[in-house]
């Protein structure tokens, strides 16, 4: 099958959607499909062979933050050329409602279109104003995918219609087979995420840490992620700062090794998560998970069966659960084994097969994707000569 995938965000900036697209593309290529990814990227960024650059994304203020978006005639022309050259059987657009490449390709293509909604912006005024423009583009999509039940619900509320839920994929074996690192073992708690992004919840964990250390003084907290390390430990008593170890940005290998090594993985996020891929990665590596009770996390953890949940931003509850779990090796072993079994559902072999079956369903008997040649006025009036 010839598959075209549209990535809305810059390829050179790491992010959940970009990683998802990279893994999906590589999985599909491994199965023998022809895949081309259209992504915004600087012209001098080294790109893998299957990625086509759609030009540099321009930073513009949008929806309260600065987003890097692609628009304008140049980008539109590149999208059309890519569609024309690719002659794809199906195109898979990610985040079609964001005013970037996704929307441009939705506008420019016709034929079997699959779209994945990763997050849903809360309904913004811009989106209401753009609704008449958005709707004709979105109604070309033959199959909509949401990455979680939560993402599906917001999609249904904001844009109407329906979507099937196919979760993000993880290469389970990559994490399951990683080698634990001895210096990261022995009463360790793991945290991965941007330090200076409050929604990742490190402050909550820092508030809980003294209570955990009061009961189990040997516990060490491993923090992997970018941000100001000094600022992060400011609230902590001087004597306890030594128990926090900052690893900075880690490679994929080190991330897997860290998750293999820790006794407990804590995800204290306070919101803004539509899926929770990090929990799946932790479970793949066999790390017991303690996460805040967000809709998305609850779903990934199978309603609390595959990992424990605590009330969002409740540092006391977090500390109590962590202390109880670290002292109960039976419960930890149980979480390890239910987690590893549950996580098979998110392996690329399962998720990839479901995405492929969506492709097959929309391409059955349909013509391939082509640029949407909008009929000119002359043709409409019957004046064009062939």
């Amino acid at each position: 099958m010839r598959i075209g995938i549209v990535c809305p965000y810059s390829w050179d900036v790491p992010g959940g959607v970009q990683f998802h697209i990279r893994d999906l593309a590589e999985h599909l290529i491994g199965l023998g499909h022809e895949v081309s990814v259209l992504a915004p990227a600087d012209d001098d960024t080294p790109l893998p062979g299957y990625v086509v650059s759609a030009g540099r994304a321009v930073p513009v203020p949008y929806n309260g933050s600065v987003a890097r978006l692609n628009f304008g005639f140049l980008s539109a022309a590149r999208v059309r050329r890519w569609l024309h050259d690719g002659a794809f059987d199906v195109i898979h657009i990610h985040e079609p409602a964001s005013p970037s490449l996704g929307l441009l390709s939705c506008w420019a293509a016709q034929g079997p279109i699959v779209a994945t909604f990763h997050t849903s912006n809360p309904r913004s005024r811009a989106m209401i104003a753009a609704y008449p423009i958005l709707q004709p583009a979105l109604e070309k999509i033959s199959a909509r995918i949401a990455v979680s039940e939560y993402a599906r619900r917001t999609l249904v509320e904001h844009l109407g219609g329906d979507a099937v839920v196919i979760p993000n994929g993880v290469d389970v074996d990559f994490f399951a087979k990683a080698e634990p690192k001895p210096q990261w073992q022995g009463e360790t708690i793991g945290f991965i995420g941007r330090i200076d992004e409050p929604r990742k919840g490190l402050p909550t964990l820092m508030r809980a840490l003294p209570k955990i250390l009061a009961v189990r003084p040997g516990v060490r907290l491993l923090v992997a992620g970018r941000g100001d390390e000094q600022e992060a430990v400011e609230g902590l008593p001087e004597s306890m700062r030594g128990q926090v170890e900052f690893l900075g940005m880690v490679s994929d290998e080190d991330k897997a090794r860290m998750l293999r090594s820790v006794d407990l993985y804590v995800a204290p996020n306070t919101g803004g998560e539509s899926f929770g891929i990090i929990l799946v990665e932790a479970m793949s590596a066999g790390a017991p998970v303690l996460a805040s009770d967000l809709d998305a996390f609850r779903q990934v953890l199978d309603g609390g069966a595959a990992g424990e949940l605590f009330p969002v931003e409740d540092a006391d509850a977090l500390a109590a659960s962590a202390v109880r779990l670290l002292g109960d090796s039976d419960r930890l072993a149980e979480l390890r084994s239910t987690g590893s079994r549950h996580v098979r559902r998110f392996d690329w072999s399962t998720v990839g097969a479901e995405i492929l079956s969506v492709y097959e369903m929309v391409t059955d008997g349909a013509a391939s994707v082509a640029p949407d040649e909008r009929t000119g006025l002359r043709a409409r009036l019957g004046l064009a000569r062939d």
Partner: protein
Amino acid sequence: MPPVTITLIWIAAIVVLLGVYLSWTAGRLDRLHARIDAARAALDAQLLRRASVAQELATSGILDPAASIVLYQTAHAARQAEDEQREVAESELSQTLRAVFAEPDTVQTVREAPGGPAAVGELTAAVRRTPMARRFHNDAVRAARALRRQRAVRWFRLAGHAPFPLAFEMDDEPPMALTADGVGR
């Protein structure tokens, strides 16, 4: 220019713009109807595939006689159903499949029989794809209905003689043992 000419030019411009808009909307509607047709064909294919595999399993002799009879009967009814009874018959097939494959052991028994893995694979694919196909179909129906309710579309009868699209409503919950969540339980 006399005022009459200017008025005429204005009227002509408005008529042309209206014509372009209507033609564009008709194009949208046409595309949506094509999408519904394709989605409906895909849904039909999945439902038919599901009923065929169920019928095959019922006549294979792998399942116990009581389960075989019930499964055969509902699968047969689903395949033969007229359009008006289709949704009910297909829902009944879903319920029967859930009852017959309630236990993961049953799935395992089928898998161990000669040709079993292929049958289980086909049934799994069919029961998973049916809900997907139905959602894609109903999503297309909703989009078309929203457009057809617009005033311009009704006044100018842009939909022509195409019937008002109807959603396909049925119980399509797959048996737990055959879902992705049931894998490894």
